[in-house]
């Protein structure tokens, strides 16, 4: 059997927009490729996506495999799995990184199963053991109560999906050079068994994208009602932030489910997370504790959220948040 080598990063482009996590993975993949003394290869399936090849190179890729075909305009499990598996069989990478987005987590298991290899989901730490040349994939389990380090010692490629927002985007170097290869994989119409008919905005909340947000203002039970989220929105507007919510707020139907942060919602890693009236159940913490800076406002000084907060204000959010909004507004004005 041919030796497997090179680190692959699957680049995800959705409706013409590159997912940030793809860039984060290029940064991480570069380090892994260097540790192994192998190449970093970006794989870009899609339609009309050639422009992104240079972006991948500027962020660290040595080589880019571009699969630019009209059948790949929309993501489909069937189409994308066939493309990626065909390329894996052709080139035999040793490692493959996929963003742990909804599409990435849809596709990853399909690929690993077809290739009869191991997949580690939702990794938050990646390391290469230079002696064994194996990737040490580390991920949370049991709702964030436990971390596990996983190896895939006997099969290749070793595949992992990686949480968005955990790693930093590398600085782009527009002068960096790399090789761009065009690939084609035959896809018959009936091989793609799903069809996207329509894209619906998230229940009146267009453009919620917590995974890629730089600042999140999140509300929990303490917000007390649907109307009161207005106070958080005003702060978010001043900060250019996105609105998050705890399960309690979503279950009370104060805010749609797309905003939910935590184990049954989204995992986020913004630069700043402002938790308002959120007690901090372990399931919520599992979704936000990789934020760079956590600011919490809560009435209850014993609330567990304060155990993870870098800055904790004990007080009434209905006084604190409007005051903060006002002060930041004044600051921005001059």
């Amino acid at each position, binding site marked *: 059997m041919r030796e497997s080598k090179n680190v692959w990063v699957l680049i995800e482009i959705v409706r013409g927009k590159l997912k940030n996590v793809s860039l984060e993975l290029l940064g991480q993949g570069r380090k892994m490729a260097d540790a192994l003394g192998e190449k970093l290869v970006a794989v870009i399936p899609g339609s009309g996506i050639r422009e992104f090849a240079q972006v991948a190179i500027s962020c660290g890729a040595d080589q880019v495999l571009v699969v630019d075909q009209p059948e790949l305009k929309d993501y489909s*499990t069937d189409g994308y799995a066939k493309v990626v598996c065909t390329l894996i069989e052709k080139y035999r990478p040793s490692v493959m990184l996929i963003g742990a987005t909804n599409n990435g*987590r849809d596709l990853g298991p399909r690929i690993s199963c077809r290739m009869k290899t191991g*997949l580690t989901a939702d990794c938050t730490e990646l390391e290469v053991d230079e002696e064994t040349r194996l990737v040490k994939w580390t991920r949370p389990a049991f709702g964030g109560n*436990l971390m596990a*380090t996983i*190896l895939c010692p006997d099969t290749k490629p070793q595949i992992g999906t990686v949480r968005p927002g955990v790693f930093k985007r590398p600085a782009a170097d527009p002068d960096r050079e790399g090789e761009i290869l065009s690939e084609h994989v035959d896809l018959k119409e009936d091989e793609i068994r799903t069809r996207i*008919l329509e894209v619906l905005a*998230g229940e009146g909340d267009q453009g919620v994208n917590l995974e890629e947000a730089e600042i999140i203002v999140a509300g929990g039970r303490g917000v007390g009602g649907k109307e009161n989220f207005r106070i958080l929105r005003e702060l978010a507007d001043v900060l250019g932030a996105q609105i998050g919510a705890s399960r309690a707020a979503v279950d009370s139907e104060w805010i749609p489910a797309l905003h939910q942060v935590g184990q049954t919602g989204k995992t986020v890693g913004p630069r700043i997370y402002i938790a308002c009236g959120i007690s901090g159940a372990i399931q919520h913490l599992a979704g936000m504790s990789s934020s760079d800076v956590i600011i919490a406002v809560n009435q209850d000084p014993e609330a567990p959220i304060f155990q*993870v907060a870098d800055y904790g204000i004990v007080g009434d959010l209905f006084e604190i948040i409007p005051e903060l909004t006002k002060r930041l507004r004044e600051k921005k004005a001059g």
Partner: protein
Amino acid sequence: MEMKILVCVKQVPDTTEIRIDPKTNTLIRSGVPSIVNPFDKNALEAALQLKDQYGAEVTVLSMGPAQAADALRECYAMGADHMVLVSDRAFGGADTLATSYTLAAAIRSLGEFDIIFCGKQAIDGDTAQVGPELAEHLGLAQVTYVAGIEKKEEFLIIKKEQEDCYEKIQVKMPVLLTAVKSLNEPRYPNIMKKMKANRMEVPTLTAKDLPDLLPERLGLKGSPTKVKRTFVPSVRKTGLMILGGDANGKVSELLDKLAEAKITL
């Protein structure tokens, strides 16, 4: 013809009840109740709603130790028609690939299904892999993160949850779907059915009943991933607490401290 629907469920420890022993820094699992994985209940509820609306035969399937039969009994009490447990020492220690391989063989032995439902992920492992891997083994189309289902003859129109929107996806049955929480509100088990289920023997498939299984693909041995080490995550330290003063004073203190730390809001 009546639809045939299979729902895969997993018995999991209620992770909301798991605590860390502060002395040994390990998980305290004793006394933690076992529950039906919450997303699997959404999956079952979706199956039962299709049954209520169009008529369907709903089978629940679980792989696990003998006590996982209790999870199946709860599903029966919610309205499932048949229960099947897949249980054998040879299946123990399986990662998602070996698990899905075994489940796929069990499903093949049960016949063909129009829809196979799974929860989007189990709350203990959180991998979200078994569903898609099962679809791969069975050669089925899949839609994951399902937040809405509409049936149109042999097609399903699925509302799929994405990070920032929903997609309306058309797919023809047979198909494997994985359910998110917002899909529905699972019904409560019926007490009378619960009592009946408790007296029922749960049909069990062992390795012997699935002769096509290759022994080298089962359990720990058939698992390409190996857990090297588990550890309790380092907890973030409590930072600065701002307790005293009025709202104005507290906000001033926060902004000052952020400025000192060169954190810009």
